[in-house]
């Protein structure tokens, strides 16, 4: 985990680029720094590998103040991808990818193995590409190499400064998709700078929106899209995108309400009957205060077919949940990401309102997409 506490940056010319920044980048998440040009995204990012030194406050990585770490060691332990594909033109693809492992004095066999593995990971055939020069690759291929070069020495943190912005739209989307797919495998702490809201929405676990050296809003893409903190955020997101997002179906339109809710002290047979009646395979256990206590699947019921037991005896804890207002598509993404079939729907004020299941969602989506779309969206 990375934490910035009261961080300020005043450049040599007296310009105050960062004013009291407090952010947390969570482990294993993609945090996106976004904002208009000149708002301090790159400055913030470069503080983390000490390419820029902050003038006030603290930067902590896993609780350790980075000003106590040797910058060279620090940088070798953090992956770094820059905007204009900073591949070394005089080195082969293999040498480029092997750069940091070589600095770290890995033996050649280990380097060779790692390079092959990484090239395969992004769909570049090692035998075809490893001896080529960067200039012999397309822009998209070059930036794939840029990304795996950052991964080479297995850093847990990766910094990416507008890595895809110089690419054509098709390669850009491909690389975004690949990054999301890759991240599921590698689970790195990624700090990603962009000025492209679509890109941020697509890849971010957390978005940090900046303006004039300050953080304006911070949250998941859904949170920010649903509750833009102020006019600036609304403007930055764009009226059109906001509109589109608001007109998208949300989870509560398709959720099971009371039918999918049982209380912890309900006897199992009764819960089972309710399940059958409503053709459900999962139910959500909610207490009198509308707090989620757990969930109950049809398999747990069969395995514990005991008339004397209560729901509370067999229920399982709930790991993931969605908030009201979450678009169907996002909920579906969450489900496939974590391989779950149902998610409780939580309202910030009212508590648990119901349950959204994969089956019901797919039905709903099918119904929407088979209809003529509303405003040409």
């Amino acid at each position: 985990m990375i934490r910035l506490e009261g961080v300020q940056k005043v450049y040599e010319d007296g310009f105050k680029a960062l004013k009291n920044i407090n952010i947390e980048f969570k482990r294993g998440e993609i945090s996106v720094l976004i904002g208009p040009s000149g708002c301090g995204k790159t400055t913030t990012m470069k503080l983390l590998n000490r390419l820029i030194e902050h003038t006030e406050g603290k930067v902590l990585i896993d609780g350790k103040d980075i000003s106590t770490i040797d910058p060279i060691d620090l940088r070798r332990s953090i992956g770094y991808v820059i905007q204009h594909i900073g591949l070394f033109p005089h080195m082969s693809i293999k040498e480029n990818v092997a750069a940091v492992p070589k600095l770290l004095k890995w033996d050649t066999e280990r380097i060779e193995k790692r390079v092959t593995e990484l090239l395969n990971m992004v769909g570049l055939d090692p035998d075809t590409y490893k001896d080529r020069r960067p200039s012999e690759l397309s822009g998209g291929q070059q930036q794939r190499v840029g990304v795996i070069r950052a991964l080479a020495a297995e850093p847990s943190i990766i910094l990416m400064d507008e890595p895809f912005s110089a690419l054509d739209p098709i390669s850009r989307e491909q690389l975004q998709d690949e990054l999301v797919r890759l991240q599921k495998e590698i689970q790195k702490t990624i700090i990603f700078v962009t000025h492209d809201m679509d890109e941020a929405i697509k890849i971010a676990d957390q978005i940090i929106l900046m303006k004039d050296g300050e953080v304006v809003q911070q949250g998941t893409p859904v949170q920010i899209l649903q509750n833009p903190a102020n006019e600036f955020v609304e403007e930055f997101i764009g009226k059109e995108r906001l509109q589109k997002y608001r007109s998208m179906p949300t989870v509560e339109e398709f959720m099971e309400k009371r039918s999918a809710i049982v209380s912890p002290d309900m006897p199992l047979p009764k819960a089972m009957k309710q399940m059958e009646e409503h053709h459900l395979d999962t139910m959500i256990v909610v207490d009198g205060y509308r707090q989620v206590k757990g969930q109950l699947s049809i398999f747990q019921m069969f395995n514990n077919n005991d008339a004397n037991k209560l729901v509370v005896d067999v229920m399982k804890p709930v790991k993931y949940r969605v908030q009201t207002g979450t678009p169907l598509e996002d909920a579906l993404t969450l489900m496939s990401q974590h391989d779950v079939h149902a998610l409780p729907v939580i309202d910030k004020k009212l508590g648990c309102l119901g349950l959204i299941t994969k089956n019901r969602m797919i039905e709903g989506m099918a119904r929407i997409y088979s209809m003529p779309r509303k405003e040409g969206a």
Partner: protein
Amino acid sequence: MEWITDYFQFLAERYPDILKYTVEHLLMSIGSVVLGIVIAIPLGIYLSKTEKKLVNSFAFTIVNVFQTIPTIALLAIMIPFLGIGLKPAMTALFLYSLLPLLRNTYTGIKSVDPKIIEAARGMGYNSLQQLFRVELPLAFPYIISGIRVTTVYIISWTTLAAVIGAGGLGGLILSGLGFNSKPLIFTGTIMAIVIAVLADHLIGRVEKRLSYK
């Protein structure tokens, strides 16, 4: 056709001398260029890195001044300080080699894309690794072409060194003038051209071999 047989006879008689003058010439020019490389390349690297603008313009002004002094004049100026012979001649030639070597090294390093430098720094190259593994290889085409150009014209200017008694192929030409011997003048000139062309070709091959595409 008689002059050809005459010329071959001349070559047969004088070849030890011709060889001696040629070797002298070669050593003198290569020596000056190598000396130039040893001084100018590190200096060029330093100048490309230093943030002291004053040091920079001072150094470039000095080497520029040497460059503008006519060759024969520079050789002459050397005499009161270093007398005659090899020492003043090589000193003068060395001073001439400085500017192109310095300028090309400086430009080469300065021409490296700052984005690439940033990538290297961000990945954890320390400054020496950055210099030797990134900047110098990328500046190499500039540096080697500086060496090539310098070598060729120093070989040609070395013929003037004989004026202050340093020998070399210029010596052959001067004695040709003294004895009114066309073959001597001719041989001296041709040999100087041959060496220059060969050097140009040789360094050109190194350049091709070692420069990245």
